[in-house]
């Protein structure tokens, strides 16, 4: 029995949110902190000016991304020389497409069909908002293999139905914005440094400084360390974003294939088409490609359990990102600023806490999405026990992967930050580096494992109410938020800070946990069967819709 891949949260969501976080939020946050730092250190009361400047300059990142994204269709239409696909060109296929559109729900907005006179062009989908396009090369339009045409067309339509186009376009635009942003941020730092250090901003060129006066002021060592650190960080971030984009695109191909299989009610046409057109790539080439190999796609089409296995690489990567960003961005900057201006502390604490919360929520989202796969598999195989051996083993594996990733990210980040903060922070960084390997890490790991158990229990309860991806997304966002709040409150330092005394803090933790369980137990979301749309009352061992008796989680409804 094949599992239905459209009822759980795929790892695409995690990858996409990570990409946005890395590509948009992090550079903007850095800019804000650096703007503050420079303003506070060098200008004193003029810090507001720097804040306004940095906000204005770096708010342009999302604007750049949005503009690039909005113009993507126009650009593709122009560059690819695409023309509207008319009935007279291939009446048989045009008729098939129109007939298929008519069979889809009315809510579906049919994409515009285009064709390319590039004979060998592979079909592809693109667009923004409601205006979507599918471009088909002449090679496919003139083929007498109608099965191949239909399969390829449905695969492309699957990308649109699965909302892949939107996410991919935003991912591409994020990379493009980084390409502009990297030189821009370096230029700003170089210029601001020159102007501030030389005092030109204060006195202008009228001061008539000689080079012998300017050079000692320039502090080239520190200057190049800053610029080097910023440049290096962006190169690393750029690479992460690039890899995330490719991974997102590759994962989405499996889902587009799955949609084609679902629509055709058989996996055989897809198999035949992939075999017919398959190319042989080396291992290295396949890493650079936007598509998994044909062999892998056929394998997943026949047995999609691979899509339901916990991906420890994702957990490790999220941990790495969490450690990398959490150590350098807020902590280091706070310490740096703290040494210079005590009065600004509350604002920076608020900023860094917000950043840490967002990062932790993302981690929780990644982990809960991964859990969701497992919960679903357990549900189908009727292993409903919350704490089976498999479950516990998976929780341990996830905890280890996340903690290893987190510590690795922390260490890498600290080492990378040493040149930038060499004079002011070398001793602090050394201490931090040493503490990374201390007993605190073990305590944190245990704390984290407890949170994962809570996450698992909540996830299990909510996953049984998620017959569609939309429901799954809402449920897991709720779980994510709860886990993030719970993690931070159960942290003794933060908890005691909020609640004052230890007793009050412990009582609050117990109260929050009980309240959350009660809320989940009492909530009735009026779940509907995805097939007959009748109300379904969820229960632990629910496998089939009580009304239409169709399986709620598997693909058995189709006679593959």
């Amino acid at each position, binding site marked *: 029995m094949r599992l239905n891949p459209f009822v759980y949260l795929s790892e695409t969501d995690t990858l996409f949110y990570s990409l946005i976080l890395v590509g948009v939020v992090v550079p903007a946050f850095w800019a804000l902190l650096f703007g503050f730092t420079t303003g506070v250190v060098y200008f004193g009361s003029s810090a507001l000016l720097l804040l306004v400047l940095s906000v204005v300059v770096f708010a342009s990142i999302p604007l750049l991304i949005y503009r690039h994204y909005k113009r993507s269709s126009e650009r593709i239409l122009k560059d690819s020389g695409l023309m509207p696909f008319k009935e007279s060109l291939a009446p048989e296929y045009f008729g098939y497409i129109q007939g298929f559109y008519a069979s889809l729900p009315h809510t579906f907005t049919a994409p515009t069909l285009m064709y390319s*006179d590039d*004979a*060998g062009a*592979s079909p592809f989908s693109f667009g923004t908002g409601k205006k979507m396009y599918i471009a088909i090369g002449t090679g496919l339009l003139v083929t007498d293999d109608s099965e191949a045409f239909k399969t390829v067309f449905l695969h492309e339509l699957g990308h649109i139905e699965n909302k892949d*186009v939107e996410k991919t376009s935003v991912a591409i635009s994020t990379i493009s914005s980084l390409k502009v942003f990297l030189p821009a941020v370096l230029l700003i730092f170089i210029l601001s440094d020159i102007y501030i250090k030389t005092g030109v901003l204060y006195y202008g060129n009228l001061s008539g400084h000689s080079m012998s006066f300017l050079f000692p002021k320039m502090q080239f060592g520190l200057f190049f360390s800053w610029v080097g650190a910023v440049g290096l960080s962006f190169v690393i971030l750029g690479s992460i974003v690039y890899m995330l984009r490719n991974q997102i695109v590759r994962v989405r191909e499996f889902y587009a294939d799955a949609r084609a299989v679902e629509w055709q009610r058989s996996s055989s046409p897809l198999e035949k*088409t992939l075999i017919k057109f398959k190319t042989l790539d080396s291992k290295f080439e396949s890493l650079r490609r936007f*598509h998994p190999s044909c062999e892998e796609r056929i394998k997943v089409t026949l047995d999609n359990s691979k899509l339901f296995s916990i991906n420890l690489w994702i957990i490790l990567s999220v941990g790495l990102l969490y450690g990398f960003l959490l150590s350098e961005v807020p902590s280091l900057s706070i310490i740096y600023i703290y040494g210079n201006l005590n009065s600004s502390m509350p604002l920076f604490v608020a900023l860094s806490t917000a950043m840490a919360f967002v990062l932790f929520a993302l981690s929780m989202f990644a982990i809960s999405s991964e859990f969701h796969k497992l919960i679903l598999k357990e549900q189908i195989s009727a292993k409903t026990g919350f704490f089976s051996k498999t479950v516990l083993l998976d929780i341990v594996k996830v905890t280890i992967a996340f903690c290893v990733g987190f510590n690795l990210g922390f260490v890498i980040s600290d080492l990378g930050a040493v040149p930038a903060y060499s004079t002011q922070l070398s001793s602090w960084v050394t201490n931090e580096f040493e503490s990374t390997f201390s007993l605190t890490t073990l305590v944190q790991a245990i704390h984290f494992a407890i949170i994962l158990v809570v996450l698992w229990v909540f996830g299990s309860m909510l996953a049984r109410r998620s017959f569609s991806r939309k429901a799954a997304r809402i449920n897991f966002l709720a779980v994510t938020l709860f886990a993030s709040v719970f993690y931070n409150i159960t942290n003794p330092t933060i908890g005691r800070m909020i609640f004052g005394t230890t007793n009050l803090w412990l009582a609050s933790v117990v109260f929050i946990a009980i309240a959350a369980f009660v809320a989940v137990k009492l909530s009735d979301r009026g779940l509907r069967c995805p097939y007959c749309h009748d109300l379904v009352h969820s229960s632990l061992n629910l496998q089939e819709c009580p009304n239409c008796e169709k399986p709620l989680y598997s693909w058995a409804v189709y006679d593959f």
Partner: protein
Amino acid sequence: MSQESAEELTTRLSCEIVKDLAPRELPFFDNYKQKFLKNPQAFSEKDPKKKEKILGFGVGDLATQVLTSFVLPTVYDAICKYLAKRKEKKVEKLDQDQLTQIRKDAYDNAVAMGLEKGKAGLLADALVGKIMNL
């Protein structure tokens, strides 16, 4: 005979060959013809900047299925040779050996561009047949 005439002859013969061998491609022929007439030499060259499409189907080159993209450059090459030989020998019709050579060249040319051998044979035969009737 002028270069323009060679191109005119090429497009006319190509259209007839496509009509015989791949009638499904006829609606697209005019587009290919215009692209070909813009720069006959560059028509069969592959774009080195061509990249894999994001959100495409991710399979190999589908070009082998469009006969027109092989017909135009193959016929153009054969017609140029045919016209050159006619001019050189100062004759109206070519003899059997010369036609066999044109067929062989056309076949090799099409195969070198990536066309399947069976289809390349059909294309070469059709081309020689058309040239014989000129």
